[in-house]
């Protein structure tokens, strides 16, 4: 500890050299490159058509307006429906996914006959699967086409998460388990009363990861949901943009400028409402992911 702080003090005293300057410039440049396209999108969503037409990039909205957001709310009932279904999928999916993941991870952190077999049974699926058509036909056979249940079920387990979680449980002190065992607790009681409370940070992190995963899901919904009466937020955004480009295309001869810039604001408003919840949970995610997730992540 004292050694580390000493080094730290030394570094603070050290003068900036060329290397430090170059690093600082490169890193700042990278931050700007990542930030500016976001900001551009947010600004466009908050300005009028005319302002966007005059200048596609400004640091603050040329003429401030909320019309793009109001249009989204009023004239497309699809947004509300997509939001609702996405929230339900996210909540239900996250709860179920966490249950399955945490239970399995705890079991894998203990020893029992057949553990190696079951572990390989899981790891194999990380590298090999049936593929699109067989999965689709199976869902069809189960009557799960055009259902939200299929979307929830398909995203339920990530073997990778189970492995990291298992490493988390393994790093917990063994004495606690032994003590509980001597007190006559069975494995489920130990899991529920001793181990789960210990792993709260890790579980919170994974719950957020799962939630983000479900929030962003679109591939299977695109294939499984018919779009008219069932959709998810990501697909709503996709179809909104596609419909608009189509609209612009057909109206191109009349007033290309007007339609394209009008829709640009609405598009960016849709982008913003789609990523807003992620922006809200991101600070909580970030707090944990460096230490929580990467501890022994590479180790199988």
């Amino acid at each position, binding site marked *: 500890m004292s050694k580390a702080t000493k080094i730290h003090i030394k570094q603070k005293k050290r003068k900036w050299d060329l290397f430090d300057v170059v690093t600082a410039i490169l*890193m700042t440049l990278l931050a700007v490159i990542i930030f500016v396209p976001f900001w551009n999108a947010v600004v466009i969503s908050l300005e009028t058509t005319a302002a966007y037409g005059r200048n*596609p990039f400004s640091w603050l909205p040329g003429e401030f307006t909320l019309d793009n957001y109001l249009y989204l709310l009023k004239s497309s009932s699809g947004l509300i429906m997509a939001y609702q279904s996405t929230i339900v999928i996210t909540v239900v999916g996250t709860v179920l996914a966490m249950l399955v993941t945490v239970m399995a991870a705890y079991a894998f952190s203990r020893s029992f*006959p057949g553990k190696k077999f079951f572990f390989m049974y899981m790891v194999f699926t990380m590298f090999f*699967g049936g593929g*699109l058509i067989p999965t689709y*036909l199976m869902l069809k056979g189960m009557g799960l086409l055009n259902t939200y249940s299929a979307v929830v079920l398909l995203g339920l387990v990530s073997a990778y998460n189970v492995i990291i979680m298992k490493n988390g449980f393994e790093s917990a002190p063994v004495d606690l388990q032994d003590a509980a065992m001597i007190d006559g607790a069975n494995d489920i009681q130990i899991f529920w009363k001793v181990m789960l409370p210990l792993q709260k940070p890790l579980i919170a992190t994974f719950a957020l990861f799962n939630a983000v995963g479900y929030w962003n899901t679109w591939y299977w919904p695109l294939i499984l949901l018919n779009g008219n009466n069932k959709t998810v937020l990501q697909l709503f955004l996709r179809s909104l943009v596609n419909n608009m480009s189509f609209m612009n295309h057909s109206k191109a001869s009349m007033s290309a400028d007007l339609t394209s810039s009008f829709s640009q604001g609405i598009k960016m408003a849709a982008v913003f409402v789609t990523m807003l919840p992620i922006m809200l949970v991101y600070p909580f995610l970030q707090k944990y992911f460096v230490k929580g997730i990467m501890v022994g992540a590479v180790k199988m």
Partner: protein
Amino acid sequence: MKTKKKGGKWLSVWKARYLYFLLAPLVIWLTVFSYVPMYGILLAFKKYNARLGILGSPWVGLAHFRRMFVTPAALQAVVNTFEISIGRLIFEFPIAIIIAILITEMRGKRVKKIYQTIYTFPHFLSWIVVANIVTNFLASDGAVNMLLQNLGIARVDFLASKSFFRPLLYITSNWKEAGWSAIIYMAAIAGIDPTLYEAARVDGASRMRQIWHITLPGIKTTIAVMFILAVGGMLNAGFDQIFNLSNNVVKDVGQILDTYIYDITFLSSPDYGFSTAVGLFKAVVNFFMLVAANQIVYKLTGERMFG
């Protein structure tokens, strides 16, 4: 712990009954959603008929695979997939390592934290959202083109240009994922013994030399594992990104196996047998690439992921 008594094995199974109970949901899920579909792989060797089902449909042997190797569009997709994946190994794989090293070397704790917050954020967005942000920014009447025009350079249609499409893939993929991928290397760097750097400083080693002789060797294992995984996913080539960024103009250079499978399955009259065969080809090649990469990296560096 192992009892050598007769029936000892069953005793330890009985003792672990609660653990099996905890494991059961995972095993059931894996069976239903990963292993049951694997039997559908039979379709790759059959002519699918919805009335007869997977088992009842007639066998066609390797006909679908033969067809794949004489279909120009399929071959084009295979070539594109390899080219794009190799491009990613060159233009994306090292970037995360460089970012990780630069972040750790950077001065100023608070700025560092803010920058890292910015770098990792795009990872949590879907490619649908990112594609929209990118398309807006690079559109022919968008921000970048306005800048080019102000600088007196001709406007470029970045999104509908064959020559720009692949660089666009590498740049946007780095934009979204490089900061996130850097985390794993940062964790590895954090695990390096700090006294090594101290000793090097005393010996008068420059920062570049410290990176070359201490940091890089210190994260060798992590680099090896990530490389093996990248090669093992070589035939994936990034469906989500390409599906959301491509258009008809760039199809020639952007069609990969996964988008090809999607197209032949959902856009034209589908042949499920053929689609499954292409998918199986992809999965098998991926699997062998993974094993081969593991062996080659082991031979070269003594590091490996499994085996």
